[in-house]
């Protein structure tokens, strides 16, 4: 079986005037279907660039990138858009929900761009199902401003899931969340991964990375470490532990 993601001497260079920034330099990497990878590194090490590239938001400057056997370098803008629509689910650090649309409408968004299109009724059904998966079944008609950060991120995850992609990409999905909410979100990812979804996320928090199966560390656009996570955290267990600790604090105070 071929890898879901295969990078070969992949480089991405930004040009701003005279300056050239080698955001990602000659990276070779394989990620199999069903993996759960955390990409880590200092600020400016090229994590976001890597994610945007894996998300087919643009093509490599040099080197090659196959997603699910398709050579990304050979696709045009529209083909990339269709690929993102069908195979990739994006989760952004700032959630990036449409503020004036309800949760359900936000989740329906990727289905608007499906080719061939599906009926409105199907869209609603699938959106409701996705909302149920992230545990927000009764909040469909809420606007983002009426939801907590964790709930907004769940809506964003549901939106990423709704077109049944092969790959979930999340750039610092817990960056704006408190510890417990972060754990809950990681729990959602673990659940999805358990049911077969490939998840790749960027984080700079070590303990968040421990919920993943594999940690890739970047520095100056290169991969400097690529290891399997040994003492993996389980979100359900960790939340239980946290609750007990909180109770203990309340009892003693």
């Amino acid at each position: 079986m071929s890898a879901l993601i295969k990078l070969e001497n992949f480089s991405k260079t930004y040009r701003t005037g005279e300056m050239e920034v080698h955001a990602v330099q000659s990276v070779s990497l394989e990620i199999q279907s069903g993996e759960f990878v955390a990409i880590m590194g200092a600020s400016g090490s090229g994590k976001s660039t890597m994610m945007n590239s894996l998300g087919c938001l643009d093509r490599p400057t040099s080197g090659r990138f196959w997603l699910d056997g398709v050579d990304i370098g050979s696709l045009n803008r529209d083909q990339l858009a269709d690929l993102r629509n069908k195979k990739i689910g994006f989760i952004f650090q700032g959630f990036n929900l449409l503020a004036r649309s309800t949760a359900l409408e936000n989740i329906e968004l990727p289905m608007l761009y499906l080719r061939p299109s599906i009926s409105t009724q199907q869209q609603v059904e699938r959106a409701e199902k996705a909302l149920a998966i992230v545990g927000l079944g009764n909040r469909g008609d809420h606007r983002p401003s009426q939801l907590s950060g964790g709930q907004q991120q769940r809506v964003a995850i549901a939106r990423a899931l709704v077109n049944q992609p092969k790959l979930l990409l999340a750039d610092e999905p817990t960056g704006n969340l408190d510890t417990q909410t972060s754990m809950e979100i990681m729990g959602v990812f673990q659940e999805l991964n358990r049911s077969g979804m490939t998840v790749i996320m960027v984080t700079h928090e070590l303990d968040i990375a421990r919920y993943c199966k594999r940690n890739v560390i970047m520095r100056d656009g290169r991969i400097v470490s690529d290891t399997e996570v040994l003492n993996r955290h389980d979100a359900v267990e960790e939340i239980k532990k946290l609750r007990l600790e909180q109770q203990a604090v309340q009892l003693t105070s």
Partner: protein
Amino acid sequence: MIIITTIRMAIRALQRNTLRTLLTMLGIIIGVGAVIAMISIGNGARAQIESQIASLGQNVILVMSGNFTRGGMGMGFGSAGTLTKEDFDAIGREVIGVSGASPEVRGNAQVAAGNQNVNTSIIGGSEDYAVIRSWTLTSGANFNDQDVRSANKVALLGQTTAATLFGDGEAVGQIIRIKNAPFAVVGVLGAKGSDARGNDQDDIIIIPWTSAMKRITGGTTFRSISVQAMDVASSPQVQSDLNDLLRQRHRISEGKEDDFTIRSQQEIADFATASTKVMTVLLGSIAGVSLLVGGIGIMNIMLVSVTERTREIGVRMAIGARGQDILLQFLIEAVVLSVVGGGVGVVFGVAGSYAVAKTQNWATLVSTSSVVLSFLTSAGIGIFFGFYPARKAAQLDPIEALRFD
């Protein structure tokens, strides 16, 4: 992406900023409204002038004193009195193919009947005057050639004048006093309505020109003579005979210009139609400029909207929107703006036209074609001015757009 969904999305996006949407639409509303109102006014004026010219009568040739071609003017009546009583008599004697002729003199006079008193315009003409103008009588009878020759004090009353002086009572057989001279009312004319300038054509009294010159205008010359040809075929011959006769009578030597102007009804109609057309086009284009300004307003707001929603565009692209989907989204927003604005503008334009007709007593004619055209134009303006902002949105780089804040 399905068009219906996109339209719904566009409407929702526009509803978010109601005030801005309304202000943007206002440009188009005013533009379309103005175009429709202006064209309606122009068309109304044309229709009225045309019907007025038709009411000059069939195959009528107008001989006016003075030369209008020199000044470039083709319509109107001369004041330089070059047409004499003898000219008129000669026309009757010498031009063949004429079924009727009448000079015209005009003046204003105080008219009284019983205790009623009005100031109205007096037209002096021959017994053919009403006939040539195809002016029918609702009661009584026209005066005859004997009345004209003897300068008898007989009068035909216009509808308005008759109503003012006698109310519902019978006018025929009554005596009215024009400048204190007693005139017998012999007939009442049918209604003609108001002319292009809003003047009531029925507020009038027609008397023999001989009486008019003697008692009211006092002059010895005519401002014009209307000549009616027997039929269409003889009309050109009559026209050229009139020309020859008057040049000869006025002793105008070869190469000198006429001191009179002859116009057939057709020529007058053509000129009037042409000039009202120019007026309509002029009014329409001035209004069109405001439509253009409205379009620029749409472009401006759409550019602002694209910038404001850069992140949204980035998200949409990241989740699979193609450039054309984004293009369509913003284009449809612009078109919804302009089409709704255009629709409201049509309503205002039509209402405005009727308001003008009512309050200014101007004729307006709302034509379906001007409504359809300005509505389509507003849609076109939406597409034209919405395209640049929409394309700008569609060409955004998704990564840049997502980083934007």
